[in-house]
């Protein structure tokens, strides 16, 4: 049981959601956008999320878009991970999303909730970082488009009350050669020890990670090292590991040393597979 009360709102448009947020904030209700709600409910139950009002964004049409406009794939933040997997417009996204939680939970967990969640794995963002996607954000100043790197690479950088509405991805990225590998401490479901997603574009290999640091990331410096093809692979991997941001996670899923050990092997496997593709 959630041990406190909150109000529940179900806006029908982006503008209404933003208005509601502003009004509820003024009333001191610390509102939160509610998408799949799984994180709000599970963290709320143990008092790690406290709010006086939830704004359910799933019924906003823009948040449910799944389709193409010109040469761009548009995905609404309110789509469930299962819907994305079944429609499969972006195979790398389907592969990565399919490893998040379990099938029944993915009927509820949404793309926007995963990307904006406090639980820091946020694995569904990796394909968008690799594809240089754009995010559509709504806030007090209206709607704007930003690069996914500015908002979601590393710690999430959303302004207070800003709503992630959609993610836009150029069609040319959707079918590029890719891999997505998730290593867990044990079992077949659960949080990652490390997840690596990779994509080959213009003969260069891009990589993005979750589970290595307390945020998902893609690093251009690390990719530079990995793509020095004239250097032996083991040396490239050694150099790439030196470019990792900090801190490296050191927790119940695995020590920092163990993560680096697994990462070295993973990077070698990923590069061998991607260079062969």
């Amino acid at each position, binding site marked *: 049981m959630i041990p406190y*009360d909150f109000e*529940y709102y179900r806006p029908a448009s982006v503008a209404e959601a933003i208005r509601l947020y502003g009004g509820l904030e003024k009333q001191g209700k610390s509102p939160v956008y509610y998408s799949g709600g799984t994180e709000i409910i599970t963290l709320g*139950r143990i008092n790690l999320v406290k709010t006086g009002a939830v704004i359910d964004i799933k019924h906003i049409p823009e948040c449910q878009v799944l389709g193409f406009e010109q040469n761009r794939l548009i995905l609404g933040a309110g789509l469930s991970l299962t819907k994305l997997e079944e429609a499969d417009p972006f195979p790398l996204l389907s592969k990565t999303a399919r490893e998040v939680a*379990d099938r029944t939970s993915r009927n509820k967990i949404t793309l926007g909730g995963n990307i904006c969640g406090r639980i820091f794995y946020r694995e569904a963002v990796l394909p968008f970082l690799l594809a240089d996607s754009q995010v559509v954000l709504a806030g007090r100043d209206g709607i704007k488009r930003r690069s996914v790197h500015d908002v979601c690479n590393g710690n999430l950088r959303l302004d207070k009350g800003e709503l992630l509405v959609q993610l836009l991805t150029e069609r040319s990225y959707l079918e590029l050669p890719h891999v997505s590998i998730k290593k867990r401490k044990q079992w077949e479901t659960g949080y990652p020890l490390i997840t690596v997603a990779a994509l080959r574009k213009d003969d260069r290999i891009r990589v993005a990670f979750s589970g290595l640091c307390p945020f998902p990331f893609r690093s251009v410096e690390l990719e530079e090292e990995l793509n020095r093809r004239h250097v032996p692979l083991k040396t490239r991997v050694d150099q790439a590991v030196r470019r990792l941001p900090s801190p490296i996670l050191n927790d119940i899923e695995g020590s920092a040393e163990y993560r680096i050990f697994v990462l070295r092997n993973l990077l070698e496997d990923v590069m061998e597979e991607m260079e062969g593709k």
Partner: protein
Amino acid sequence: MHPSSYGKIGLHLNINGEERTVTIRPADTLLDVLREHLGLTGSKPGCLNGDCGACTVIVGDLPMKSCLMLAVEAADHQVITIEGLNHAPIQQAFIEKFAFQCGYCTPGFIMNVHALINRHPQADCETVKEWLKSNICRCTGYTEIEEAVRSCLLP
């Protein structure tokens, strides 16, 4: 449903084909409401964290963990709980294949695979395994459960 203002709200739900009206807090999960307000105790509380699947019900045509859903979210959908299944083939199959021991996880498993069989009557092995990963059983082997599911699928 009347949103806004702290306190209780009146909510209409369609549960097992019946229209039910409940007075609840918007913060109540579907699991809370099924068990505490409607006396439908077949959906089991386990982890309350989305991990075990004991609380699984069918919402629309999808299995959902009722501990991960607010009751207000179920307002526009048909909800089916284990009490709403009337001798579904999977129930008999669980008996015939010895697919349970203590039975605590069983309603959740049955609701999940009942939805699977309806959506994918010819599901392949990989799909069955994928769906079964959503539920945890602490007593029996998963082999019997898989056999029960397979016995209900079309060849």
